[in-house]
């Protein structure tokens, strides 16, 4: 291994450690236990599949028999769950079972046997591992699609973004879907690079697995189909991925065919929250549960970067993935729940990483400077909420004023190399400050802070 590889390896390990630590800290209480009962329901599905051979969970579907029951893990009925009993249904087929099996297996291995044993302290652990794995996968994908610098930035941003950190703790199927999709995309990129058909077959397997976490994982198949160029590879990819996804049907039919079909029909007729302002809401807000918004500027940077990328390059896999999921997001009417947005994040962070890397190495750092002020300003605003420091505000005002003017001047006189170097140094400084503010803000989000988030 050469010096560059060692350096990259060391950096990635460091980012993984930081990302993991930030995800683990306060993970038991933020988001509050019970704020999404799906977290428990997913684990109960896995636990009941292991112990009973039948999935049991909370159902939100109409026309399906449910049994009102009180189950009080983490004493949620004394805190976040107001009043009513839970609509327990069995066999539970609302979603495919893989997220249930992941969280339920960990709960079972740690000794949980009944539903009330399940606690966020146990079931969020595997999700944090998956979310940390995502950091490495984002690094690899950005490396294969763009450049080492984009990979470094994208991984660093995803590892430290407060939204990605808190969202990456929740036992939601999207947190299983994402790593499967990313693995599939990494394999497709490697297959193209080394011209290996076997890797495409393996990519198809993981794309199929994404569907076994949630039906919206079909995006992994759609994006794969749009990325693959050769007809023969395309046929194999489709055949393998669809056949893996169809295991959900065989699973349902084997356990209770009649109930499975009834749930599928009810799911097809399900209407919830497809607001006509869904795209505006998606771009301008950062929702995390069904009610909580955690303000984070990085996704907006990602959306702006996507626009720049779509204008500049020929259709890139990144644009394919983001827009394919946008189509699925709108089809599934996902605006009501923050966790439906989780699959956007890896791609928004890769886009942001690409945009900032272009600012550092490319011709025009001005836009990168302006865009960086979004997350930096938000983070500083949150960190110093209620306690504004006059010296900091002065630095921010005059520093950004000077940097923007400097960047403009460097564009007016491009032949003055010293100006361009000064702007890039300023941009790097801003980037370091933004990442440091990410870490400080993320560490601030404990249970007391969480109560104030709205």
């Amino acid at each position: 291994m050469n010096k560059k590889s060692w350096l990259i390896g060391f950096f990635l390990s460091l980012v993984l450690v930081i990302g993991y630590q930030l995800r683990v800290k306060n993970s038991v209480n933020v988001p509050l236990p019970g704020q999404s009962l799906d977290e428990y329901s997913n684990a109960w599905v896995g636990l009941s599949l292991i112990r009973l051979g039948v999935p049991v969970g909370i159902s939100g579907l109409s026309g399906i028999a449910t049994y009102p029951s009180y189950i009080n893990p983490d004493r949620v009925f004394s805190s976040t769950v107001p009043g009513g009993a839970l609509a327990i249904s069995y066999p539970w087929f609302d979603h495919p079972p893989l997220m249930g099996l992941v969280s339920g297996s960990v709960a079972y291995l740690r000794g949980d046997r009944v539903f009330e044993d399940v606690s966020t302290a146990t079931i969020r652990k595997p999700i944090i591992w998956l979310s940390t794995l995502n950091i490495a996968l984002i690094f690899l994908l950005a490396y294969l699609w763009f450049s080492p610098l984009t990979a470094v930035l994208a991984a660093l941003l995803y590892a430290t973004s407060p939204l990605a950190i808190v969202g990456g703790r929740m036992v939601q199927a999207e947190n299983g879907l994402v790593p499967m999709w990313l693995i599939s995309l990494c394999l497709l990129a490697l297959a193209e690079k080394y011209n290996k058909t076997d890797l495409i077959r393996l990519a198809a397997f993981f794309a199929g697995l994404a569907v076994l976490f949630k039906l919206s994982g079909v995006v992994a198949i759609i994006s794969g189909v749009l990325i693959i160029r050769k007809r023969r590879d395309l046929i194999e990819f489709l055949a393998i991925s669809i056949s893996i996804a169809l295991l959900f049907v065989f699973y349902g039919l084997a356990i209770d065919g009649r109930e499975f079909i009834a749930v599928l029909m009810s799911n097809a007729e399900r209407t919830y929250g497809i607001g006509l302002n869904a795209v505006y809401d998606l771009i301008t807000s950062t929702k995390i549960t069904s009610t909580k918004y955690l303000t984070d500027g990085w996704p907006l940077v990602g959306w702006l970067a996507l626009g720049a990328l779509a204008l500049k390059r020929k259709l890139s896999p990144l644009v394919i993935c983001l827009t394919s999921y946008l189509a699925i997001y709108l089809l599934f009417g996902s605006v009501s729940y923050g966790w439906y947005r989780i699959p956007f994040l890896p791609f928004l962070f890769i886009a942001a990483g690409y945009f900032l890397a272009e600012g550092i190495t490319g011709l025009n750092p001005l836009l990168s400077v302006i865009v960086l002020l979004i997350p930096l300003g938000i983070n500083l605003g949150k960190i110093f909420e209620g306690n504004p420091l006059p010296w900091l505000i002065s630095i921010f005002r005059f520093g950004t004023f000077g940097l923007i003017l400097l960047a403009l001047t460097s564009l007016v006189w491009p032949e003055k190399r010293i100006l361009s170097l000064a702007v890039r140094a300023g941009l790097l400084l801003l980037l370091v400050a933004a990442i440091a503010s990410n870490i400080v803000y993320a560490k601030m989000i404990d249970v007391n802070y969480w109560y104030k988030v709205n």
Partner: protein
Amino acid sequence: MGFLKKYFIAYGIVVLLLVVFLKWHKEKSFSNDLLTQMLTAQSRSKYRTDDPCLYTLAGEPEVAGQYLKLTFLCPGKEARFSLDYRAIVKKTVGGAIEELFRLNGVTLDSSKLKCKQGGREVSLTDPIVNQDNIECLVL
């Protein structure tokens, strides 16, 4: 033999094994007793108390008319609860108290309670109907 042909033969075997395993596992493992135990047994890590006023239940059931109100008068304090009537399995005063105690990890012996419904004294075996309002004094 092409790759896909070999793949689908292997796939067919895997599906067959999966279906057989799932059916066998359900047949062998499922019982209503175990299901009830999993749904109702209390957590091994749950803190137990003999004070029925220590823990509250947040909010009200969101089911029109399908509720039961329980009030406990403990020494120096009182606690009010609204339960979803449909979730109470044994439709008696004792059944409702048992359900609430299970939910909150209360170990108090129900015989140490003196309960009233609409000013009239009731026993633990008396039936309940939805919208009942029961008040129990902890002796």
